[in-house]
């Protein structure tokens, strides 16, 4: 037990980071689950990482704004490819997403072999650590997430497929740097799975499941001195299982 670590000034920014990720990932997660393209976030994240390494290879500064632009441009390219492939090869979409993932991941290795700079940046980008989040980095992320979710809610019928993939690319690029790829995946899938049977209030319940998971994970991590991101993934899974066990009974009434 470690009471000193249970401190709002330590856990507060991490919880806020979780909330920012959930804002976009709960509604997007339902869409991902419905389309059956679960591994899209891994593919997009890996492509964003490839963009940063390519920027490093061109001699650009791999920190700061240039890296962000490179990451987002690469993620957007991946989104455009996936938009096109879904209309062209519909039922093989998940397989193509898998191929995109391994190509981006191994492409990073090949680029890094020629130019080792960027290796650490790739690691930072893919395994952002939730505890290092501070208000300075949270503010722009919060703004981007709120804009993204507003566009999604207001314009999902107008933007169609391409709008979904572009917003997805943006929110994954932002959130993986805040909390890391494992938590991005868990935040996307766990609340969506828990609320799969709900017709009404599904997004609201999804937010509750997600926030509860983050809160529980942070407390457990502080109390038992365990790596924070990994514990939150397990807490999210636990809360989601509990919620999906409770929900079918309620929704059938």
């Amino acid at each position: 037990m470690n009471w000193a670590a249970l401190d709002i000034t330590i856990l507060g920014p991490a919880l806020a980071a979780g909330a920012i990720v959930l804002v976009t990932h709960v509604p997007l997660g339902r869409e991902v689950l419905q389309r059956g393209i679960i591994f899209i976030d891994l593919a997009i994240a890996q492509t964003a990482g490839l963009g940063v390494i390519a920027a490093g290879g061109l001699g650009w500064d791999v920190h700061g704004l240039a890296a962000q632009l490179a990451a987002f441009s690469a993620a957007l390219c991946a989104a455009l490819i996936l938009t096109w492939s879904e209309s062209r090869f519909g039922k093989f979409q998940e397989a193509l997403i898998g191929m995109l993932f391994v190509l981006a991941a191994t492409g990073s290795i090949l680029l890094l072999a020629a130019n080792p700079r960027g290796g650490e940046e790739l690691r930072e980008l893919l395994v952002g650590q939730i505890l290092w989040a501070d208000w300075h980095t949270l503010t722009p992320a919060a703004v981007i997430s709120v804009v993204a979710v507003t566009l999604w809610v207001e314009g999902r019928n107008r933007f169609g497929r391409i709008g979904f993939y572009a917003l997805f690319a943006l929110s994954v690029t932002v959130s993986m740097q805040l909390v890391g790829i494992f938590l991005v995946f868990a935040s996307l899938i766990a609340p969506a799975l828990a609320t799969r049977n709900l017709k009404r209030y599904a997004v609201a319940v999804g937010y509750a499941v997600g926030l509860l998971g983050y809160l529980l994970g942070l407390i457990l991590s502080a109390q038992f001195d365990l790596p924070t991101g990994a514990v939150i993934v397990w807490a999210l899974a636990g809360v989601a299982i509990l919620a999906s066990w409770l929900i079918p009974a309620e929704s059938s009434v």
Partner: protein
Amino acid sequence: MSSSENMNRIGSCSLCFLLLALGATPAWAQLQIFACEPEWAALAEELGGDAVEAESAVTGVQDVHYIQARPSLIARVRRTDLVICTGAELEVGWLPLLLRQANNSAIQPGAPGFLAATDFVDLLEQPQTVDRALGDIHPFGNPHIQTDPRNIARVAAALLERLQMMDAAQADYYAARYADFSARWDEAVQRWTSRAEPLRGRAIVTHHRSWVYMIDWLGLDEVATLESKPGVPPSTSHLASMLEQLQNEDVHAIIRSAYQNSRGSHWLSDRTEIPAVVIPHTVGSVDGTDDLFSVFDVMLDVLLEPEE
């Protein structure tokens, strides 16, 4: 979040009672020391004795370049009086973030509460030019200074001054402990150096260029490194050319740290019949290295008779 503050308070109170019950030295009298690596925590305990409480961020079997963030790390740095790290960008991936989150002005770099060990040692491998194509080169020189015991002595002298400055009331206690430690250490360094005499000039292969100070001290000859560039896994052509090179050389051992992947070493060892061994690089990295003295005892045991 008043509930968490309450829990915090209850927690601190019960901790105090626990310490009183155990008859331990009261926590408020001890200088709190946060070390990045186990060797500096061990050194702080050698000089500080009962007057300090030292903990290390990484253990002997973890890679110091990377660290998993835990809330307790931030909490510990927040209430610490003195941070001792290697510096020279060894911890650049996580220490600046940790110090920023801790938000404790007393232990920021430049403040008396922050001691970078590499400030007191002449660094090897300071690059003439930092060429990014050469890999993750440390621009200030090679930071893995703790594998030469003479560097430990240099840092000990600097640490004594710092402890006396931070905790003037105990200055004589620290001076006495330092005198005792450095006498035993100097004697041990002489013993190790003469024990290692047969190793002088012997060829070795390393996994990562983290042994340059040990190599410099013992006069070893590093003929090859498994990583073709620092931090980059070996490529097939690099391994093949290394294999060819090593056929014609009398190589004593292939060495790596406890946290490094054994596959590359074993691949080369299987093909060349050169023994691949783990050398302790710090306290707690292999069995029987509970303090700084035993690190170098075991290091020489393994180097003198390398067996897998």
